[in-house]
Every structure is written in structure tokens, then in C-alpha cells.
């Protein structure tokens, strides 16, 4: 018998060799992820630790920090210390900016979804050869810098801008409509900046959608609206979730858009935090504000993902 030549020792040696091979390949795989881990560590985790530490220190008079423990930065977020008697007074200024930023981000996300879904659906239902052209068109704005594009919006909507001049020339209005440096301007800028981030994940989700399922739903007496709500939307949920996250989170921390189109009058969180490191010269407060934002986003995310994934299960 041929099996007789395979003694127990050779068998176990083979097994050992195989186990070693598996182990080394696993080690090699772990090594492959090392560059990514190093980058995440240096540029992600380390700054976060520094921010965390700084938020518990005292601001130095001309920027920077003094190495002295304090929770003032967090207290200052909601309260103001009276200069004379040291009592804490509730001041909602920062809170209002946070809430306003949340509102901007939520409105941006909703409108981007409402505009992005039909767009993505349109793209996904084109013949395959055409689709890549549509994707290319959507990505064209990324070819130039956001700052430049935001300035361009400024030139379009300002009092002597394209829109007002056109309307004046047509005689629709007799004095310019003020659009620049308003909430409207910020909202418009945010929508413009983040719409592609909604369209692309929605498109990739809808493109994978099996349209035979849509036919099956029509066949089973579902109207167009029912097909949309019962089949297309539930099945494109991964794209909707990804798109909403990709729009909401950066919109919440938007810096350039509100700064330019809001004229520094209508602050958003990003501008507020930037101020603490610039003219405010209060680094610990800036760090605390940044961490509070992060915590708020994580909490919001937690509830959002839990709710939406729940809906998928209930179909």
C-alpha cells in the first residue's frame, strides 16, 4: 500500500510545515497593512491625542498652551466666567452656532438626497456605455479647487453679480436682491460643494440594482410609487447611508464655504474652531470645541445607522 510509506512522523512534519506556511502568510498580510497603520497613527491618532491633551490645559496669552490642568475650556463652551466675581454664567452663543451648523448640515443632506437620488437613478438607467460619461460629468467640479469654485459662486450671486444683473436687465427687479453673506448663500454653497458626494455613492448602489426586481414588483401590482418605496429605496439603502454620511459630516465641519459666502457674519462650527486658533488665541477652547463636535457626530451617527439598518430589516 502506498499509504504505508507515509509514516506518522512525515505526516506530522507535513502538517507542521503547512501550519507554518499559514502562519507566515498571516504575518506577511499583517505586514502589508503596516504602512496604512503608520499613517493612521501619525496623522490620525496622534493629533487626536494632542487635541485631547490640549483641551485640558490653560491658554497662553499669545497662543499656544500653558502646561497646567484645567477644565475651563469645556466650561467655557457653555458658561462664561465673570471677570470680577468668578461666577459662571450660562452663555448659549457657542451652542447656537453648533445648532445652526447642525441645521445647515441636515438641510444640506436632505436637499442633496432629494436632488441626488433622481440624478443617480437617471445615470444608473442609461445604457452601460453612456454611464461612465455621466460619472465623469459629475466629477468635473473636483477638477478645480473648492476655494476657487466658492469664489465663483460669490461672483454669481453678489449684488452686481450675474443673477442680479440679468434680472435687472430683464426688468424683473428694480434693485438687486441681496444674496451674498446670507444664510441662503451658505446653504447654496454647501449644496453645491457636497452634491457630488451624494450622487456618487447613490449611483454605485443603484447601478448594482437588479432591475428585474423592479419588473417583478410591477408584475405583482406595485405602482411606480410603490416600486420606488418598497423595492428601489430599500435596496439602495447602502448608497443612501454612505451618501448621507459623506455629505453630513463634512458639511457640519465646513470652513471655506461659510467663511466666504457667509462673510464671517454667519458662523459655522468650522469657522468658530478656526477662530480659537487664530484671533481668539485660545487653543484649549478650540480643542474642546473640536472634540465636542466629534462626540456629537459619533452620537448622531450611532442613532442614524441603528435606525436605518433597522428599517432595512423590516423591509
Amino acid at each position, binding site marked *: 500500500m502506498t499509504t504505508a510509506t507515509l509514516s506518522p512522523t512525515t505526516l506530522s512534519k507535513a502538517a507542521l510545515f503547512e501550519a507554518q506556511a499559514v502562519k507566515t502568510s498571516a504575518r506577511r498580510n499583517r505586514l502589508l497593512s503596516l504602512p496604512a497603520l503608520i499613517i493612521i497613527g501619525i496623522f490620525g491618532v496622534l493629533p487626536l491625542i494632542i487635541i485631547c491633551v490640549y483641551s485640558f490645559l490653560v491658554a497662553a496669552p499669545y497662543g499656544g498652551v500653558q502646561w497646567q490642568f484645567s477644565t475651563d475650556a469645556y466650561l467655557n463652551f457653555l458658561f462664561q466666567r465673570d471677570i470680577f466675581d468668578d461666577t459662571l454664567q450660562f452663555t448659549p452663543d457657542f451652542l447656537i452656532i453648533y445648532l445652526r451648523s447642525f441645521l445647515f448640515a441636515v438641510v444640506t443632506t436632505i436637499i442633496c438626497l432629494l436632488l441626488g437620488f433622481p440624478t443617480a437613478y437617471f445615470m444608473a438607467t442609461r445604457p452601460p456605455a453612456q454611464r461612465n460619461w455621466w460619472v465623469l460629468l459629475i466629477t468635473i467640479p473636483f477638477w478645480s479647487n473648492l476655494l476657487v469654485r466658492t469664489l465663483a459662486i460669490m461672483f454669481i450671486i453678489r449684488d452686481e453679480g450675474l443673477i442680479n444683473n440679468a434680472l435687472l436687465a430683464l426688468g424683473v427687479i428694480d434693485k438687486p436682491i441681496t444674496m451674498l453673506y446670507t444664510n441662503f448663500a451658505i446653504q447654496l454653497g454647501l449644496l453645491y460643494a457636497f452634491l457630488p458626494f451624494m450622487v456618487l455613492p447613490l449611483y454605485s448602489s443603484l447601478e448594482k440594482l437588479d432591475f*428585474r426586481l423592479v419588473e417583478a*414588483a410591477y408584475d405583482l401590482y406595485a405602482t411606480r410609487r*410603490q416600486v420606488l418605496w418598497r423595492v428601489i429605496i430599500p435596496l439602495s439603502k447602502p448608497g443612501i447611508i454612505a451618501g448621507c454620511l459623506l455629505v453630513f459630516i463634512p458639511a457640519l465641519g465646513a470652513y471655506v464655504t461659510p467663511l466666504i459666502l457667509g462673510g464671517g457674519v454667519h458662523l459655522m462650527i468650522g469657522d468658530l474652531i478656526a477662530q480659537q486658533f487664530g484671533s481668539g488665541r485660545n487653543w484649549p477652547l478650540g480643542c474642546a470645541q473640536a472634540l465636542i463636535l466629534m462626540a456629537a457626530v459619533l452620537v448622531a451617527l450611532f442613532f442614524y445607522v441603528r435606525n436605518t439598518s433597522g428599517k432595512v430589516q423590516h*423591509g
Partner: protein
Amino acid sequence: MPEQPGKNAIEVRGVRKVFGTGENQVAALDTVSVSIRENEFFTLLGPSGCGKTTLLRLIAGFDFPTAGEILLHGQDIAPLPPYKRPVNTVFQSYALFPHMTVAQNIGFGLEMLGKPKAEIEARVAQMLKLVKMEALKARRTSQISGGQQQRVALARALAPQPKVLLLDEPLSALDYKLRKEMQIELKRLQNETGITFIFVTHDQEEALTMSDRIAVMSAGKILQVGTPRDIYDRPAERFVADFIGETNFLPGTVVSKQAGVATVKFASSATISAGYPEGFNPTGEVTLVVRPEHADLVPDPAKGTITGTLSNIVYFGTDTHYHVKLDGGGENFIVRHQNSRSRAVTYETGAKVGIQFEEDAARVLKD
């Protein structure tokens, strides 16, 4: 064939379907007319690209005909969207909703029709029982096997009690054994529900075993409609004979004709009587078709109507095929013998043999 107008579930009248525009136009269906009776198991049979699935999609409402009418119980449904037709489809890919459970899939149609919850639940339970899937009703469709998905797709399409059930090659993804099982299952479901089934397949064996009637299609046209026996024994055209079952084609010359039977002479100057379809007038050089099981081998070539040399013997278990190289040349002639224990003569390749024909074995067909 005269039809009683009220008894038809579906009547397709002069339907044309053209895809594409301008020079790229392709007629997927070229003026097709067919009547499908109530409670019938009707099969559209043909090779891929013959237009059978197009016809099914027109009946379902996924496409609209370029010309012609489709009547459901006498009412033209051709312009209606699919959700307004009391017709349901079992898809080749099953197209089950992956985000719903088995029970939710089955109840979907009823839910869309706005039926009360209690009625939906009762009907879903009944359907689950009908297709023997009660135990798996809470599973996701991705968590069940192909055969089980097939059953769910059937139950889902049957749940709203459609007037007509359309089946688009539903068994093609199943393995041989499961397919055989589902063929019987489908017949049982059709008997139990009394719903008209329109079944699309390219598998002639499936069509023959399951159907009440078959329409054989090719290149956007219906070539013949009839019972499986009609189609097999009395094919109207050469294509039908060739597509369904195995067939031998023999060249010959018509000598005389009388009451639907022609006398045809072979090159060997032997003659044979052969029937021909109504409305066909065979003259001169014709092609005869003979089924392999309607011919017999004789060891003595002198006793055969035609003669040849055995070139190949293929054993199939239940029967044996003898390939005979005919003396006049042309294609190999195949004779099928059932493998019974009592067969005395054994043949060997290279032997000279004669071929005899049973009565009515040969038919003259349009090319």
C-alpha cells in the same frame, strides 16, 4: 382550427414587436396570432432568440407590441401597464426580493392590491403549504436553495390568484433531478389551482411531457400549434420535426398523390407511402422525415426498403441508436431500438443492413 371565443384565456391577434430604430430594426415577433384556452398548460417552445420570451413579456406588460392586440378574456390588455393586468410571472432568475423574507415575498402582490392583513396572512399560509415551504417562511431568500427559491417564486406569482400565470424558463437553473421533480410539481400546481399556465422553454422534452398544447416558434413566427403528440407525430414543417426529438431526413421524388398520402420513390427505386400536412402540395424532389423509433433494422439487406452500412452503435441505457451510412449517400440514418431482453439479433459496426419502415412512419414536409 375553429375556436370558441369565450373559452380563450389569452388571444394574441396579429402581434408584431420591433426593437430598435432605423436600420437597426429587428422584428422579434413577426405578426403572431395564437389562442390560449382557459385552464390550459400552454408552452411556447423554440430555440433562443425565436421570440418566445418577447411574446411572454408582451403578455406580462413589460413591453408593448408595435402592432396587434392581446386579449385577456376578450378584453384588450396590450396598452395596460403590468400592475393593471391580472397576470403574474415566474422569472427565469426568480427575481425574489432580497430584502424580504419568504413570507413577505409571497404576500407582496396581495399587499400591493391592498388586501386586508388577515386575508394576506391566510393566503400566504395557504401558498406556503401548497409549495411545501412552511418551515422556511421566516428565512431570507438568500438563505434558501435554488429549488426552494423556485418554489417561493411560484408561490409569490400564484398568491394573487392571477387569471394567467406566465413562466419564463423557470426550471433552466435547476439540476436534472430537481428539474424532473419540479416538472411534476408544476403540473400538480396547475391542476390544483386551475390557472392557465403559459410556459416558455427551449427544452423540447420538458415541453412534450408537461404541456396540453405547444406552440413551436422560430425567427419571430409561430410555426405550429398542437398537442405534444400532434407536434411530434405530425410536424408541419421540417424545422419543427428537426427541433423536436431526433429525426431522419431522406431525399425522394413524389411519384403520385392520393387523399393526403404521397407515394415517394427513393434513389434505390424502392417506394414508400408518406402523409403530408394539410394545405401542402408536395411535388418533385421532396424531403421525407422518419423518427428513429419508427424504423427497424433487418440483418438481411435484401429485405430492407433502403440499405446501408452500420457506422456507429450508441448505447443509451434504455435504448440503443444505430447509425447507418446509407448506400445512396447523404446524412447518417438513425434507428432506435429499445433495449429489451428478448432482442435476439446483435449487430456489429461495419455490417451491411437493411432498414424497414413502420406504417405511417414517413412524412413529406415543407422545407
